[in-house]
């Protein structure tokens, strides 16, 4: 049957058929590659399902009683579990999962909520403890983009290349797909993207007759004028608390000078190269020399730096996309309609670099129901679901086409403005030892910024990171 599959899907389907045959042993069955969500189910399920599918997904809820009866008759759906950090907006993730459960009757997903992404360490810890047991629970999980290498190297994440070929992956932003790939294998499926960006006060720059800065020089120039004339209390706010956010800021500064922290091989340490030293020196100078950044950023993470900006005290702010919503909310912001967003500035003749963030899907390599798990992530990452996450929870799609959807223009207009920022976003160092590398960076870059001895601190960082990644 799969031979009749249309054009590009044929290759993929036959691979999937093989994988399926292996998974299910001698239990031969038919699948229909033309009806995507039905791939890989037993015939009797399929027959039952087609009857349901006729009614369409939206009407499926009315069929629930018959589904329940079907279950009682002995055709139990495949049970899988899904673990994710907590996100919410107009809808919760649990509600999205429920929608999936009622849209079909062959797979039933149980959702296990982890703490919100602001408690990233706890989410990581919770996931690792579960995955390290290798008992297949949870079958599907979501992971911060920086854990992908770690989970893949530990062989906790199932490689997904057999199920999502290069052609399919072209529908996603290339930077995200790259971040979802470890040693040539796709081990995560994109969910949503976030990145660092530059917020600026349109009204203040208009008064100056200046445009949104493209280089650090332009930013420093405008910021100095605005602070010295008293129009803004602070020039440029960012985050330098000795925490993960410092690594994010570091990546954008270093990247904007064409530098990096680790080479693409994950072994070469380039944090003490000239480009990186120059960039960290700039971070230091913004505080101590140009004085457009208050020393307080040394103890600030995202929220403390956001406050003064939405309170109308700062000209520029580096932060994530969540700030937009707050800045346009009259109850919490005195700069409604006065804020613009652009990619972060760069060094002369270099390119802007935003730090790539966001959570992505992973399938547990020990899952006992891999086919069902893959079906579920396929649905979760589908254009329809991504659109739903974008409009209902405000999570920016990783599919280029979804981001262009008119519904997003209507509900989250700011996301489309950010397309160029997201496309240019670059990942943090890719290594399974990321957590250890990040700890070194946090401590040494904090030292560089407070002591001013940039070169020595970065050299120490290099030595320490080399010792970590070489093993």
């Amino acid at each position, binding site marked *: 049957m799969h031979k009749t599959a249309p054009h590009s899907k044929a290759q993929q389907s036959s691979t999937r058929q093989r994988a399926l045959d292996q998974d299910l042993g001698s239990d031969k069955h038919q699948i229909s590659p033309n009806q995507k969500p039905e791939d890989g189910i037993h015939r009797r399920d399929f027959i039952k399902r087609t009857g349901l599918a006729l009614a369409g997904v939206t009407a499926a809820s009315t069929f629930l009683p018959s589904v329940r009866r079907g279950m009682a008759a002995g055709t139990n759906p495949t049970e899988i579990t899904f673990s994710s950090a907590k996100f919410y907006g107009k809808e919760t993730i649990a509600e999205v999962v429920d929608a999936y459960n009622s849209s079909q009757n062959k797979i039933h997903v149980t959702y296990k909520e982890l703490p919100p992404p602001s408690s990233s*360490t706890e989410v*990581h*810890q919770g996931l*690792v*403890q579960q995955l*390290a047991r290798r008992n297949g629970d949870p079958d599907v999980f979501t992971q911060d983009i920086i854990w992908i290498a*770690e*989970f893949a*190297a*530990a062989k906790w994440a199932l490689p997904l290349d057999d199920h999502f070929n290069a052609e399919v992956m072209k529908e996603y932003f290339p930077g995200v797909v790259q971040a979802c790939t470890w040693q040539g294998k796709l081990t995560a499926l994109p969910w949503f993207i976030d990145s660092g960006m530059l917020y600026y006060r349109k009204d203040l720059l208009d008064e100056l007759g200046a445009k949104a800065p493209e280089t650090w020089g332009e930013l420093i120039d405008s910021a100095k004028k605005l602070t010295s004339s008293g129009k803004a209390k602070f020039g440029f706010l960012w985050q*330098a*608390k*000795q*925490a993960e956010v410092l690594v994010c800021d570091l990546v954008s500064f270093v990247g904007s000078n064409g530098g990096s922290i680790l080479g693409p091989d994950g072994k070469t340490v380039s944090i003490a190269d000239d480009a990186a030293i120059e960039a960290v020196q700039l971070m230091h100078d913004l505080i101590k020399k140009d004085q457009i950044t*208050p*020393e*307080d*950023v*040394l*103890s*600030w993470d995202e929220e403390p730096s956001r406050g*003064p900006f939405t309170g109308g005290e700062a000209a520029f702010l580096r932060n994530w996309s969540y700030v937009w919503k707050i800045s346009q909310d009259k109850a919490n912001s005195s700069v409604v309609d006065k804020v613009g967003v652009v990619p972060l500035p760069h060094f002369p003749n270099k390119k802007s670099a935003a730090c790539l963030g966001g959570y992505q899907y992973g399938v547990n390599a020990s899952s006992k129901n891999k086919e069902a798990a893959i079906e579920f992530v396929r649905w979760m990452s589908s254009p329809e679901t991504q659109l739903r996450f974008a409009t209902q929870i405000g999570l920016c799609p990783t599919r280029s086409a979804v981001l262009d959807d008119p519904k997003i223009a209507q509900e989250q207009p700011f996301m489309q403005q950010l397309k160029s920022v997201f496309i240019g976003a670059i990942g943090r160092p890719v290594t*399974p030892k990321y*957590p*250890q590398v*990040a*700890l070194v960076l*946090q*401590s040494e870059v*904090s*030292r560089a*910024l*407070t*002591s001013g001895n940039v070169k020595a601190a970065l050299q120490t960082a290099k030595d320490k990171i080399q010792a970590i990644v070489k093993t």
Partner: protein
Amino acid sequence: MAIAEVRSHETTLKPRNIRVNLRRPGPLVLLVPALASIGAVSIYPVLLGLWLSFRDTTLASPTDTFIGLDNYFQLFSDSQFWNAWTHTIQFTAASTLVETLLGLMIALILSERFRGRGIVRAAMLVPWAIPTVVTSKMFGWLFDGQNGIVNYLLRSVGLIQHNVDWYGSPDFALVTIVIADVWKTTPFMALLLLAGLQTIPDSLAEASVIDGANAWQHFWHIRLPLLTPSLLIASMFRALDAFRIFDLVYVLTGGGPADSTEVLSTLTYKHLFSALQFGYGSALATIMFITEIVIAVVFGVFLLRKMREVGQ
């Protein structure tokens, strides 16, 4: 289950036999639940931590082998460890000393009779009753570099010209954390010392008054010597507790800036739960455990000596 049933049959049939059987292991059997729970929640974790500290276990990597004392060698050559160790000792010494002195003063005042003493005694405990995370957030705002009231007050009285960046400066961050801890935990010291003061018989005070001792002599020669055991116990509790300082640092600075507030607990947490280096992190935890024992023993020796003196 079958055996239990048979036994229960026997008990009903031959009560005398049972009494004889139970007599010998009896007391031990009754201790089993207590011993088992202490073993499970206290002894086993310590031993497991010790065992892990001899291995290179990292949860997210396949390595898990016995490496002897390598973790400890690495630890002793790790500048971050010594940095954290120094901060922990500094914090412990400073907070214990200040809290003991302040606590003693408060205890002396509260042991006097005055109107509204009950209310004052209760009110004094409020800082101690507030969850530490809340205290941390509160001090975060008090010492905020831009809008903090501490900066405002210091500027108003002319002590500083510009705002001090309390948490963003390696020179002030640890001091600020000590201040927060003193505010929070002094009531605890005061409470313990107040209890100690109340064990000193009034007759001694009356006798000293009759002998013509002034207030200072009364305090120095009668109350203080008799209070020493309480002082030692209270400061031992405080020192052991201060040595584990975690929440204030975790909430306020995360160990920064430039590791200037990194203490052993936060460093251990980072290695154990951020980097998931269970082996190395356990070595750190073991060193903390040993240092705590040393502190306890030092205080214990002093305490025993004092108690013997008082006893004589």
